[in-house]
């Protein structure tokens, strides 16, 4: 997981690659990639970032730095990404369209790339209403697709959207999100196709708890030939308890948890252990689905548990840590 140079000099990416990203190398070589989410601290102490990153760094190909997810204020994704590159870790810099306009975002993309960031994840962002500061002004100048196309234009055509030239373009592996298990189900694969057309090279999905629904989505994705054009990393995460699962389902936007999963949590003697077991099973099932290139593990402030889940699921295989 550790890259040799913390912030490498500006050099062209390897042949057939768009960036120096470890995640891109792993995916293009056909290996099963693993990414995980780092929960941003409510603190200005870099040690808090490194403490959360360390258990993940040993088992993943890239660490996602969330951008005020759920519209809650934490340390910024660009700050976390910069700290991670300094330590030789490989971050996925998440960009939400909710909080910044096109001037800020295009500038931050250059700044992040200069700090050694080589993966970005373009997101729409949750509405401000669900967050801790619901009176904030929602920006949404870009949406995730126009953002993807803009960064691709910056990278490949060396131009800002205004037409001004960029002398040394940002070398970034472009990612986007998808949420296969929520409505409108029929149009989700079409929307994925649109994201690929906009420039997405990898996809990290929201939480998947409903395997049959996800398999249906993937069947359509394969029909459209999208699995050959984009690397798909389904998202998974451990549930803490049945109560927490119910709360997430009704309060966090875009989360679908089938009743069967909640019942299983309810009848378990040790809900936390059961949540972990369910997550490991999900990873093993997802891995068998054609067109899947890796897995993305998310758990709120439980980085050690994420590391255990990844190791116990067997996805690391013979890979040298």
């Amino acid at each position, binding site marked *: 997981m550790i890259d040799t140079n913390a912030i490498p000099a500006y050099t062209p990416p390897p042949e057939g690659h768009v960036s120096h990203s470890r995640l891109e190398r792993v995916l293009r070589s056909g290996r099963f990639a693993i990414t995980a989410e780092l929960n941003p601290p409510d603190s200005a102490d870099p040690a808090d970032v490194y403490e959360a990153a360390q258990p993940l760094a040993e088992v993943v190909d890239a660490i996602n730095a969330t951008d005020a997810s759920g519209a809650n204020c934490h340390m910024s994704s660009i700050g976390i990404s910069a700290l991670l590159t300094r330590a030789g870790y490989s971050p996925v810099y998440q960009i939400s369209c*909710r909080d910044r306009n096109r001037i800020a975002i295009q500038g931050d993309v250059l700044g992040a790339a200069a700090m050694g960031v080589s993966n970005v994840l373009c997101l729409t962002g949750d509405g401000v209403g669900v967050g801790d500061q619901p009176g904030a002004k929602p920006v*949404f100048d870009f949406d995730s697709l126009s953002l993807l*196309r803009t960064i691709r234009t910056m990278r490949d055509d060396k131009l800002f959207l205004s*037409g001004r030239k960029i002398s040394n373009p940002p070398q970034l592996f472009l990612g986007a999100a998808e949420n296969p298990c929520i409505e409108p189900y029929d149009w989700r694969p079409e929307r994925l196709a649109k994201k690929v057309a*906009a420039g997405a090279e990898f996809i990290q999905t929201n939480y998947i708890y409903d395997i049959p629904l996800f398999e249906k989505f993937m069947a359509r994705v394969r029909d459209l030939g999208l699995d050959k054009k984009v690397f798909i990393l389904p998202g998974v995460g451990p549930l803490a308890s049945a109560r927490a699962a119910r709360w997430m389902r009704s309060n966090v936007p*875009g989360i679908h948890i089938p009743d069967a999963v909640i019942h299983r949590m309810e009848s378990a003697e040790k809900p936390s252990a059961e949540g972990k077991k369910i997550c490991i099973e999900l990873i093993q099932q997802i891995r068998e689905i054609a067109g899947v290139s890796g897995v993305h593990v998310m758990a709120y402030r439980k980085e050690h548990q994420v590391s255990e889940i990844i190791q116990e699921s067997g996805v690391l295989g013979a890979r040298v840590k």
Partner: protein
Amino acid sequence: MYRVRLFSIRHSRSFEWIYHRVEQALVALDPVLSRIGYQRVERPVALVEKVVKSVLFDCKMCGQCVLSSTGMSCPMNCPKQLRNGPCGGVRSGAYCEVKPEMKCVWSLAWDGASRMKNGAQIAEVLPPVERNLEGSSSWLRVSREKAAQLREAHEARRTTIAKAFPGARKVEPSTAPLVEEPEAAHLDPTIDRPAGAKGGQG
């Protein structure tokens, strides 16, 4: 007017046909409009457009209408004003994440598009809204852009937006303009200005 909007989306195919006719008429009128001056007709046309489209589509006069590519469901009614599809927060029953009493604008858009002749246009990636065009007439911009296309002016001066979103340019020319806004020519960001002469206080 939510119910009228739903009606318009249900009849997306008819509105697509009407829109096409209106557009053809305006493109045919290009020589006349050019002679009168687009600036002079801008305000009255924008007023008519605002009234008609507010009733039918809850139009917000973004000035860069994309109804033909969104199943006649106006994306400016999406609380996140997304231009390219639904977000990941859609509630069960296809209701909006932010306004739970409203159907997801983009779920309706895809339904509307599935009934339209050129519904496949919804797959085209559209650029962000140019906020400085808010309130202006989209109809005039479309007809002027299409007329310009017809005059084979497209090799003359391509903007980066037109190049970066070529498909959008094809299906919704007003979103990725090829011709410069006549009144905005002095704001052209592609022209390098001397360091001391940057616009505004920024």
